[in-house]
């Protein structure tokens, strides 16, 4: 693979907007999602969930349930292997995952899975749940992050000791780990700064809110071979996790990816699949498990509530000189909040010589958090970008100028360590400055705010095959579920390399046995990493085509190049063909048609661990209108500017920018988990977990900046994560502009904003 990112290259398909190849299936209702699949003789599974936020399980008696006609099996944690507490690989602890899938000894949150039933109908399975008798010993619970860290707090895990402390503690704690990033001498730099601003921020637990509930079907044959049909962000992950949890060989499980109805990070782990597999093994029948919406809210990974303290020091000349940050993130019932990512992101946009960042991962009696779009970054940006806005006001500097003065660029050392290569922060700031929105007049009770967001983006493993058909059309086989148009982007890259029409390429998301390992669709990696694999596999096909042509022409392969889907003879080869009166060009269709007689099928393969993911920056601008009597905020205008490196399919890049902004707007204004005193989620549905509806949003303007990523053949950066990072601070800054009130607690809902307005005498 070359380092040239094609900035000099003329593209035929890259940057065009073909209709996605899976589009017709999805507008006609033909596409099959997780719950759209049945098998003959299939049983239906439902999960019994804890009515307590924290309790010891004394006894489970399923005899009455098993006696109900139509009930075929009931399983508890006794039916799955108990894993050693320290069984982990990378950030995933499989003992915790096993105990999350089915509670063992203790339930750690309201909704924690306790048992599962397989029956001949969903109604019978649901009735059976009400017949399972569980003897609980309720324990004191803790729902607040401060309380969870306080001495004497109810301890969730007796074996847990805080990691990352200077000397290892011997007392159990709910603080799972502490991490730290430092540079320079922050205390001295703060002491020398012209002024210092210190603030505390709080954000609420929120959910990814994908519209498709988790769903799967599992079937196990008499020989122990299991097939799982599931919608997820990674069927290889489903396979690996299920095998690990159930102590099965990976070769015993095949996972067939269904279309996925949204994930945003929430479908990067397993909940139902291991249960369906065990039930299918127990009953010898196919088992389907589909969550209700209520279960999705109560028991799947939300994004953490957080508590963040930041202290910024700045000089009158507009230079930010030092920052001190403390981040406390709720992990939920098991360790593993995205606090490390939050800590690494919080100062990433700033060129800073002196800082300390501390991150704490805290467990409490809420569901185990899962990844949510740029995991950990939005709360961190809320804190940093709101204080930056305060500094700009204090200094009476334009907020974009202040950010530009302190912005990282190529060669800057990122707060999280390494030096940046080519990045587009300054370019995005300048693009927004030029946008008409930036100078547009504001109406009464309106205000304007902006904020910057950062995300690393990811590489990881991808595999792809490009198969040349007999007529010169092609099939792209890869293994990343298409969550937002990636089939189209990957087909575009294959078409670009092969030099054929994009509609002559069929992209296929293959099952775990039909293509090499692909890591999850997540981390904004598919177009980057899997795209890289598709490009390499296509180049492999091109190389083979050139060889075939050389053999047919009986000339030296080095004299054959690839142009617009044709092998073209050059140099001596071209001379020879000219003497023989032959055309020096051979189209791919001709090479494909003759393949059988020139060496057999032509298939290109690539499996790689993609390096060189390009960090993404975005800057958002929002106008709000505030009803000072009710505290209601309306979003009246929204503009997003983002460095995409290279937009392969601009429509879907814009779509990611708009969708991320909309999720950020919901997070900022109304979304929150509301718990009652018993630790029961009070709003486990779309009626009271208030995600934005069409009427809540304006059109969302997008400006795609392209600073090519030098480590991708086309210059691609990930685009999916970063758009959710700036909205919260941008809106908080706009509310301040409109009302003079600083919101430092989420959500900025009407009651919370009206309370602040009243306190400030501005209602």
């Amino acid at each position, binding site marked *: 693979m070359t380092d040239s990112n094609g900035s000099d290259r003329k593209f035929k398909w890259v940057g065009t907007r073909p209709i996605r190849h899976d589009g017709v299936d999805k507008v006609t209702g033909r596409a099959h999602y997780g719950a759209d699949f049945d098998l003959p003789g299939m049983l239906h599974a439902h999960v019994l969930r804890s009515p307590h936020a924290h309790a010891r399980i004394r006894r489970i008696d399923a005899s009455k349930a098993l006696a109900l006609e139509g009930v075929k099996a009931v399983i508890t944690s006794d039916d799955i292997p108990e894993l050693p507490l320290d069984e*982990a*690989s*990378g*950030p995933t602890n499989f003992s915790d995952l096993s105990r999350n899938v089915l509670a063992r000894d203790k339930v750690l949150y309201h909704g924690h899975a306790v048992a599962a039933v397989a029956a001949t109908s969903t109604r019978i399975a649901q009735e059976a749940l009400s017949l399972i008798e569980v003897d609980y010993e309720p324990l004191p619970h803790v729902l607040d992050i401060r309380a969870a860290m306080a001495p004497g707090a109810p301890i969730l895990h007796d074996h847990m000791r805080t990691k*990352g402390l*200077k000397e290892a503690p011997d007392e159990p704690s709910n603080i799972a780990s502490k*991490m*730290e*990033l*430092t540079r320079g001498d922050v205390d001295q730099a703060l002491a020398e700064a012209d002024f210092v601003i210190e603030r505390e921020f709080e954000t609420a637990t929120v959910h*990814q809110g994908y519209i498709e509930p988790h769903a799967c079907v599992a079937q196990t044959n008499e020989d122990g071979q299991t097939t799982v049909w599931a919608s997820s962000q990674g069927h290889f992950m489903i396979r690996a996790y299920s095998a690990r949890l159930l102590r099965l060989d990976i070769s015993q499980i095949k996972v067939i990816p269904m279309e996925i109805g949204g*994930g*945003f*990070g929430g479908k*990067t782990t397993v909940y139902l699949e291991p249960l369906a597999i065990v039930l299918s093994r127990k009953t010898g029948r196919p088992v389907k498990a589909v969550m209700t919406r209520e279960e999705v809210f109560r028991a799947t990974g939300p994004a953490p509530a957080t508590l963040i303290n930041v202290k910024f020091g700045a000089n009158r000349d507009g230079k930010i000189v030092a920052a001190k940050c403390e981040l406390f993130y709720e992990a939920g019932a098991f360790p593993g909040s*995205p606090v*490390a*990512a939050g800590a*690494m992101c919080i100062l990433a946009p700033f060129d800073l010589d002196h800082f300390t960042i501390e991150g704490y991962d805290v467990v409490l009696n809420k569901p185990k958090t899962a*990844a*949510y*779009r*740029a*995991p950990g970054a939005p709360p961190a940006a809320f804190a940093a970008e709101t204080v930056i806005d305060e500094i700009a006001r204090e200094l009476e500097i334009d907020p974009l100028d202040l950010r530009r003065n302190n912005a990282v660029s190529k060669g800057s050392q*990122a707060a*999280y*360590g*390494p*030096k*940046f*290569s080519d990045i587009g922060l300054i370019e995005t700031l300048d693009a927004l400055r030029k946008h008409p929105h930036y100078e547009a007049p504001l109406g009464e009770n309106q205000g304007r705010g902006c904020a910057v967001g950062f995300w*690393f*983006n*990811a*590489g*990881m493993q991808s595999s792809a095959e490009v198969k040349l058909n007999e007529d010169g059309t092609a099939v792209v086989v890869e293994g990343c579920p298409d969550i937002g148009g990636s089939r189209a982007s990957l087909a575009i890259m294959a078409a670009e390399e092969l030099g054929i029409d994009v509609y002559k390429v069929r992209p296929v998301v293959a099952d775990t046995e039909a293509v090499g390992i692909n890591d*999850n669709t*997540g*981390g*904004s*990696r598919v177009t980057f990493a899997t795209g890289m694999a598709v490009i390499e596999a296509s180049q492999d096909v091109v190389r083979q085509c050139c060889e075939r042509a050389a053999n047919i022409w009986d000339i030296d392969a080095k004299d054959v190049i690839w142009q617009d889907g044709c092998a073209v003879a050059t140099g001596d080869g071209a001379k020879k063909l000219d003497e023989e009166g032959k055309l020096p060009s051979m189209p791919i269709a001709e090479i494909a048609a003759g393949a059988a007689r020139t060496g057999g099928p032509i298939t290109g393969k690539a499996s790689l*661990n993609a*390096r*060189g*993911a390009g960090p993404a920056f975005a800057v958002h601008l929002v106008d709000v209108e505030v009803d000072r009597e009710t505290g209601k905020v309306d979003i009246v205008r929204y503009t997003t500017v983002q460095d995409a490196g290279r937009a392969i399919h601009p429509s879907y890049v814009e779509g990611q920018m708009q969708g991320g902004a909309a999720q950020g707007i919901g997070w900022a204004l109304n979304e929150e988990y509301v718990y009652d005193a018993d630790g029961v989620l009070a709003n486990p549905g779309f009626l009271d977990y208030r995600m934005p509806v069409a009427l809540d949003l304006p059109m969302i303007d997008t400006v795609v900046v392209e600073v090519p990523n030098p*480590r991708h053949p086309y210059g691609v950066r*990930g685009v*999916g*994560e970063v758009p959710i990072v700036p909205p919260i601070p941008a809106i908080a800054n706009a509310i301040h502009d409109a009302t003079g009130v600083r919101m430092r607690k989420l959500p900025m809902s009407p009651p919370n904003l009206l309370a602040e307005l009243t306190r400030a005498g501005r209602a």
Partner: protein
Amino acid sequence: MATVILPARFSDWTGGVEHVDVDARDVRQLIRALDERFPGLGEKLRDGVAIAIDGEIINDPLLEPVEPDSEVHFLPPISGG
């Protein structure tokens, strides 16, 4: 020799040393060399860390090449959404 920047969280092993020059052709050799110099550190660096080599973040690397002039950082692993 490659320059390794060691984060503060490893100071129990490094005694606060932040920059080390290491002669290594890949990550495995680099971690071995660090473990010889700071006994016990190797184990901490082997599992569940990400490494940035010249600004490129790689999760859980082993044989990733390290250039003589490379700058190497150890980071917490990052999961994407």
